């Protein structure tokens, strides 16, 4: 993996237009909703909760695999949104902002609880495991569930090693399935920047994984 290290400049896109995906987050329908919440309109806040509660819950449940904790953290996420929406500056989409708060809350929770054996202590049921088997055709179905759970546990730990922004970006890409173009529109960054950030995050995760493996090997 030696060739993976170092900053790698990505070339500009050939057509010269794909690199820039500017979306005006100030003049959308969503921005109007945010402004109403900023003016302390309770109905607008209710609309935001109802619009994003499933998404927020899914993100948290995907990381923690515990419904009670997911519910508790989801409530905290919306409380945080309520108190800090005045600081929302429309530089990114509301979803990106909410996503970042949600992932940060998950990692704050993990840090506070010092959850080590995350998956095994959760309420991950046999039913969940079956769903997991069937949910993603990209994952090799021959891989045993316990190995996949261990991989989940490991990737949650590794994600704690990268910055908040990188973490949100890679999760939006891999977990929520957004394309590079969509990420550019959501974040206000250009596509090349998104690609560079994603690549570097992948590099960092691999390096962190090999470091962890070395430590584990040295410890045995």
């Amino acid at each position, binding site marked *: 993996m030696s060739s993976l290290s170092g900053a790698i400049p990505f070339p500009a896109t050939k057509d010269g237009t794909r690199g820039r995906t500017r979306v005006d987050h100030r003049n959308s329908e969503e921005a109007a909703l945010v402004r109403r919440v900023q003016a302390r309109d309770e109905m607008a806040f209710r609309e935001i*909760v109802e619009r994003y509660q499933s998404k927020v819950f899914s993100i948290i449940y995907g990381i923690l695999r515990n419904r009670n904790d*997911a519910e508790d953290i989801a409530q905290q996420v919306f409380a945080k949104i309520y*108190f800090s929406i005045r600081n929302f500056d429309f530089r990114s989409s509301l979803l990106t902002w909410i996503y970042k708060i949600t992932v940060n809350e998950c990692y704050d929770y993990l840090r506070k609880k010092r959850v080590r054996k995350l998956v095994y202590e959760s309420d991950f049921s046999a039913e969940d495991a079956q769903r997991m088997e069937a949910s993603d055709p990209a*994952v090799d179905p021959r891989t045993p569930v316990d190995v996949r759970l261990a991989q989940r546990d490991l990737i949650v730990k590794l994600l704690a090693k990268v910055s908040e922004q990188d973490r949100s970006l890679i*999760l939006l*890409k891999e977990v929520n399935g957004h394309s*590079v173009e969509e990420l550019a529109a959501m974040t206000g960054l250009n596509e090349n920047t998104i690609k560079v950030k994603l690549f570097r995050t*992948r590099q960092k995760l691999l390096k962190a994984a090999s470091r962890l493996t070395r430590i584990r090997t040295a410890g045995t």
Partner: protein
Amino acid sequence: MHRLVRDHIEDVVAGVEAAPVAEHLRACEECRRDAAAMRAQSAALRELRAPDDAEPRPGFYARVMERIEAQGPASIWNLFIESAFGRRIAVASLALALLLGVYVISSERAADQPILAGQQAQPAVVLGEDAPGRVISQMDQSSMGQSSDDAVLVNLVTYQEQ
């Protein structure tokens, strides 16, 4: 990893790479190995996808509002309690207050030292076993020299205090 693969890594990870990239991966062992590691990582990340029916229980909005009411508006004190920066400011303020306190106390003590008008600021009494005798002799000297009642009183007061 070679630039060709690097530039198209999102396609490679998704398994939809173009023919030239696929051809390079077949020929280059290093790129093949790195691409495989990133694909495995991507698969592990996708394990974080929640099942489709992951939804909060009914009445979620009401519970959120209850929590908001319980937490109340953010207080200025939360800034000090909840953030590391705030805690540092609080510690620095305490240290500063302590320093100021020490300074005030020490300067008050210095002000309490007996300084007689027209005399050098010398200790009236250096205590030891012969302290009473020395006080009396100083009293005698001062009565012979400037003969000041105030000086005698100050010496006596200082002796008693110490």
